[in-house]
């Protein structure tokens, strides 16, 4: 079965979310700077790929996709919202929309949107939706607090309790909106410069999950970093282990080389698969890092089709396309 862990979905008109809101919140959001923001698409990282460029509501996974996990990327941008009260109403409506429109509980499932700015609320949302067959994962946007902070423990506990993996995908506002994580070095002028540097975030948060002890504390926790690429993983794993060997006494809760936690609990999506440049880069080929890569089309944003993955990875493509570690229960049919 081919699994697409990174199929983007979005509403083409925010007014479509109103039916999932109370009348009071609907009246709050009935203003052009909100409804019109879909049309303007100004918050997304690819300014030329406006949310409204195509009707994503109709963006169906290809027939060859046996299971897809929809990531409602409009909801990810709340990591840069100033009004976190309204943000929760917004992603609450998106979750309801996912449940009723984007996910069918079979081949099309969705990620539950939560907010990094309110872990306790997010944990409740995970538990509320956790048993619903429409959902197969939790989408946790990034804030300026590293994921290895214990303030996220309620989210991790809820994810473990509901047996849902976390999907971490950038929203596009990282590096220039307050509340979202900064990129190192400074504030870049352009969206494309920020896009190039998004892998920094995954590296940083994986290091935090290791050294903060999160992965050691929650062995069943599964985290998929999606859209950040993957070619950097071997060097990161090597550097994690090297520093741990020297400073193990400073992080005694990390009970084995950090890479062992990564190679057991962390995955990376394959987009952009051309990062592998026609074949696996030498450091990746045959490595434990290679075995952490799962298929994510990133469609429709300049995404990779199944054919793209096959063209680049050749005989290894099937492993990536069908890897089951992120959703073992779903793929085994145990989570109907």
């Amino acid at each position, binding site marked *: 079965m081919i699994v697409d862990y990174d199929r983007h979905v979005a509403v083409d008109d925010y007014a479509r979310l109103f039916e999932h809101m109370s009348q009071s919140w609907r009246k709050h959001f009935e203003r052009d700077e909100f409804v019109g923001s879909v049309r303007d698409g100004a918050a997304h990282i690819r300014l030329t790929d406006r949310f409204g460029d195509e009707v994503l509501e109709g963006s169906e996974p290809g027939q060859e996709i046996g299971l897809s996990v929809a990531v409602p990327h409009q909801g990810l941008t709340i990591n840069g919202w100033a009004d976190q009260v309204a943000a929760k109403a917004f992603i609450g409506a998106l979750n309801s929309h996912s449940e009723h429109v984007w996910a069918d509980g079979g081949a099309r499932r969705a990620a539950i949107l939560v907010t990094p700015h309110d872990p306790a609320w997010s944990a409740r949302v995970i538990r509320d939706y956790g048993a619903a067959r429409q959902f197969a994962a939790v989408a946790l946007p990034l804030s300026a607090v590293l994921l290895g902070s214990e303030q996220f423990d309620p989210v991790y506990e809820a994810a473990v309790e509901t047996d849902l993996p976390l999907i971490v995908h950038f929203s596009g506002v990282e590096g220039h909106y307050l509340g979202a994580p900064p990129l190192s070095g400074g504030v870049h002028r352009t969206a494309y410069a920020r896009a190039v540097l998004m892998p920094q975030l995954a590296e940083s948060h994986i290091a935090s999950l290791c050294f903060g002890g999160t992965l050691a504390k929650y062995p069943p926790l599964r985290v998929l970093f999606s859209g950040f690429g993957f070619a950097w993983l071997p060097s990161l794993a090597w550097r994690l282990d090297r520093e*741990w*060997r020297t400073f*193990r*006494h400073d992080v*005694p*809760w990390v*009970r*084995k*080389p950090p890479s062992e936690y990564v190679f057991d609990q962390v995955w990376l999506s394959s987009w952009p698969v051309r990062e592998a440049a026609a074949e696996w880069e030498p450091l990746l080929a045959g490595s434990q890092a290679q075995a952490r890569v799962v298929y994510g089309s990133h469609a429709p944003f300049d995404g990779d089709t199944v054919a793209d993955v096959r063209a680049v990875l050749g005989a290894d493509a099937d492993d990536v396309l069908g890897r089951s570690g992120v959703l073992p229960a779903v793929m085994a049919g145990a989570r109907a």
Partner: protein
Amino acid sequence: MTRLEAEPVPRDLVDIGPIESFPVGRLITIEFAGRTIGVIRTGTGIHAIGNRCPHQGGPICRGIVTGTMAPSLPNEYVYEKDGEIIRCPWHGYEFELSTGQSVGGAVRGRVAIYTVEARAGRVYFALRRVPADSA
């Protein structure tokens, strides 16, 4: 490793001095057959180690003798084995003085452990490696 004083002294053991010359907690280096050996008395006995870190060959006898942090829950420190650990001066890797094993399995290989005994107020040494399973 300490033996019963009633046992006969093995023939390859060499008297390296009175036990007062080896204060508890202080690593004393000796030159023996062209090798530098570190001898130290700890709360668990007397130990002799080779002067080579298995990581990159650092002069481990110049490292500090310390304890270490036991495996713990996140953000908790549990200090233990005070005086039983030596930390390489080059990269900070930690090794058990009694076994030569890397603490926490951080490094492959171990520091060489040699035969040393205290008996009748004297310290005896042999350039004989103690196998890992009996160190």
